[in-house]
């Protein structure tokens, strides 16, 4: 069975953004639960934070495909 270590590396690299996105939405849900009237104000902020955190995972997957091992 063949494969690429890149993908294992990407799996490890995705842990960080995974935790980060979890924190962003945990804060968003918390804030909305405490003050439901703030939901429309919080939503763009939450998605902006999500997008910026996700960027790390995206750079990771791009590099996982770009950086090829010599015999991969």
């Amino acid at each position: 069975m063949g494969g690429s270590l890149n993908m294992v590396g990407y799996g490890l690299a995705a842990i960080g953004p995974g935790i980060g996105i979890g924190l962003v939405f945990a804060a968003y849900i918390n804030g909305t639960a405490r003050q439901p009237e703030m939901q429309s104000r919080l939503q763009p902020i939450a998605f902006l934070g999500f997008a910026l955190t996700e960027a790390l995972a995206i750079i990771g997957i791009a590099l996982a495909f770009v950086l090829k091992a010599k015999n991969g």
Partner: protein
Amino acid sequence: MSHGLVLAGGFTAPGPLEFFFPDFTGKSYDQGGYQVLLTKSAVLLVLGAVLAGWLMLGTSRRGAVVPGKTQFFGEQAYSFVRNGIAQDIIGAQYRRYVPLLVSLFFFVLINNLFGIVPLLSFSPFSRASFAYGLTAMVWIVYNWVGIRDKGLGGYLKHTCVPSGVPIFILPLLVPLEFLSNILVRPLTLSLRLFANMFAGHLLLVLFSTGGAWLLIEATGSPVLKPAGVVAFAIGIAIGFLEVIVASLQAYVFTLLTATYIGGALAADH
């Protein structure tokens, strides 16, 4: 089928070559058809533009004071982007950018949803080049808006020199800010859209071809056929997940475009 990894027993996992279609000459990528001519993805992109325009025109052509069902739907969709994204993020000068944001949102949304429409089942934005093209437009718009508002020097100072920072930190911060605001922004914006669509399509292909292989060709163990059924079930579930991802990515793309425009327009502190 592709150059993915080959498991023991003959199943070929789908790889990036799954995304290369033969162009109009009928030559595939392997045979030297380099996709300069019309491909399936390009046709879908045009179809997406036509559909987005038709949706907006069709729901607004017979405008009435008391909206009917179609007009109501169109107005809801329009005002979601206008009020929920443009007005909230850009602020006072938002009106000028509403057409751009609304068309971006629906163009991206419809193209993303092509990924789960039966028979089409491919999103043009799961090819990086289309996402790059769309983002190049956004990049030009937000930089041009900033330069027109503040002048070239003023805009560069506005984006690259953070205010209220001690002067000895500036040599470190200015290149970083330039890198992050001018160079990395379009990269992440396009790669976010591309990578989400790419991964989603790859998952769908993997679970459907894998499920078919387990059901039809795999032999040797009685567990394999039930596993194929489970793979198909997971594939269907991922199809529903893709609906969410497609809408979310269209929303995030429009939101970030609005944020960049708003950032370029914001007054200096």
